[in-house]
């Protein structure tokens, strides 16, 4: 169990919610749940469940993960002030992991959790389905958060690259080509969700593959971020 540095985690937490980004982070799930309530009030139970899937899981979850990951690592690396955190006798992998945990918790709270709430609001009679989306969202969110953290440690265009990946690769192409599902974080999450609830269709990669692939990407990305921090260089007058 890799230890996490409480101070770094606390600083990341303050960075995430001390800025405007934090507000938008909470706005997205608020919007989702608000809509779910609206739909439930205006129609009957069970109507509009695709909100949870096509809006919440496919769009909102990656966006929240992206906002979270780029907020805990992005700005400090961009302007070099992460130097203050790195000139310490703390292992760089611990730094990366501590930051990841904050981003991960934010993704779970504001990305995956609302899926359960929205699902239950729309159809309280099928809690298993909502639970499926919660767990699937948690798995996908964990992997998204790690991947985006890794991207943020490499380039300051991490945000755009991450969006391209989610929207183009997983979204556009994933809808067209079946084979993409083997390299599609969202598909792995959906696979896990379908294992919990039969109302959710599985993309067909098999549960073992989905879980293993998610774990590999998660651990690999966090390790990668730590490795990038180990080689962090201070730029002088350029």
């Amino acid at each position, binding site marked *: 169990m890799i230890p996490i540095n409480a101070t*770094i985690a606390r600083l990341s937490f303050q960075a995430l919610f001390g800025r405007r980004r934090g507000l938008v982070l909470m706005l997205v799930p608020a919007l989702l749940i608000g809509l779910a309530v609206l739909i439930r009030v205006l129609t009957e139970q069970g109507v509009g469940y695709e909100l949870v899937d096509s809006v919440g899981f496919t769009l909102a979850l990656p966006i929240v993960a992206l906002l979270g990951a780029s907020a805990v690592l992005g700005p400090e690396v961009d302007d070099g002030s992460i130097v*203050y955190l*790195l000139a*310490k006798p*703390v292992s760089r992998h611990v730094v990366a992991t501590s930051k990841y945990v904050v981003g991960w918790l934010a993704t779970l709270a504001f990305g995956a959790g609302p899926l359960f709430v929205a699902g239950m609001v729309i159809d309280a009679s099928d809690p298993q389905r909502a639970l499926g989306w919660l767990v699937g969202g948690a798995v996908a969110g964990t992997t998204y958060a790690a991947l985006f953290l890794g991207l943020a440690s490499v380039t300051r265009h991490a945000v755009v690259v991450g969006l391209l990946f989610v929207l183009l690769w997983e979204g556009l192409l994933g809808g067209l080509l079946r084979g993409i599902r083997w390299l599609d974080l969202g598909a792995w999450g959906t696979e896990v969700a379908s294992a919990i609830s039969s109302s959710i269709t599985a993309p067909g990669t098999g549960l073992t593959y989905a879980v293993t692939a998610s774990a590999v990407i998660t651990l690999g990305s966090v390790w990668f971020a730590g490795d990038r921090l180990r080689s962090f*260089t*201070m730029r002088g007058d350029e």
Partner: protein
Amino acid sequence: MTTLTLDAVSRWYGNVVAVNGISMTVGPGVTGLLGPNGAGKTTLIALMAGFLSPSAGTVTLDGEQIWRNTDVYRRVGLVPEREISFGYLTGRQFVLANAELHGLTDPGAATERALEIVEMVDPAGRRIGTYSKGMRQRVKLASALVHDPGVLLLDEPFNGVDPRQRLHLMGLLQRMGAEGRTVLFSSHILEEVEQVARQIEVVVSGRHAASGDFGAIRRLMTDRPVQYVVVSDDDRRLAAALIAEPSVVGVTVRDRGGLDVAVSDLGSFVVRLPLLARGAGVRLVELTPTDESLESVFAYLVSA
């Protein structure tokens, strides 16, 4: 005990060589790293702070490698040039966070001590975003001192700091040096280095141009004649006598009185001058070296 050693260190970025074969030893006391902009000062400090790996050569602290060795930060305090962007934290919170990251047993007490040293106790409760530049420098310094390091590295610490705070900072650095710490700071402003550091390392275009006390460096530059101003009661007669001397390279009569004398052999000149004056019946009033300031040393080195 706290000695930074650079051994034939080079660093290049593709075709650009930022640091070219520099060897130096930085020991206890205050050392000034001097050089024009773009000379490689920040690169050197980054190398010494473990935030850059040398393309060739080694950088060690008491024999221990610094690159990828996070434990070394227990003994090193770094004050980078970059601004702190943690504007949402108060000064105290920032220094406290640094203290906690160092794993100190009593971070609170260490924080207060550090804030006292830099005289930032009162404003420490305000957010860093509200600080002036000088206050931010002092908070940065406090965060670097909080773990009582033996080595202190400062990159352009006087940049943009107002005169009163600059004076305070200089006194602080001198005190640190006197306590036996190894303090290295970089600057391209000669007066700052002159007043604080006795030992200087001059870096020009990535090369190590000179090292040591600036008076000593001047004396070592024997290929340049030393300039003196000699004032006497009969300049012309003295000038005639001086020009005959083999150690004198040039004599210029100044229009405000006195002579500008360029001397190639300092030792013999110093012995011969009183004899010459007595022989010519001239009374010497004043003898002043005119280029032993750091500025002239620096100018010579940079233009070389």
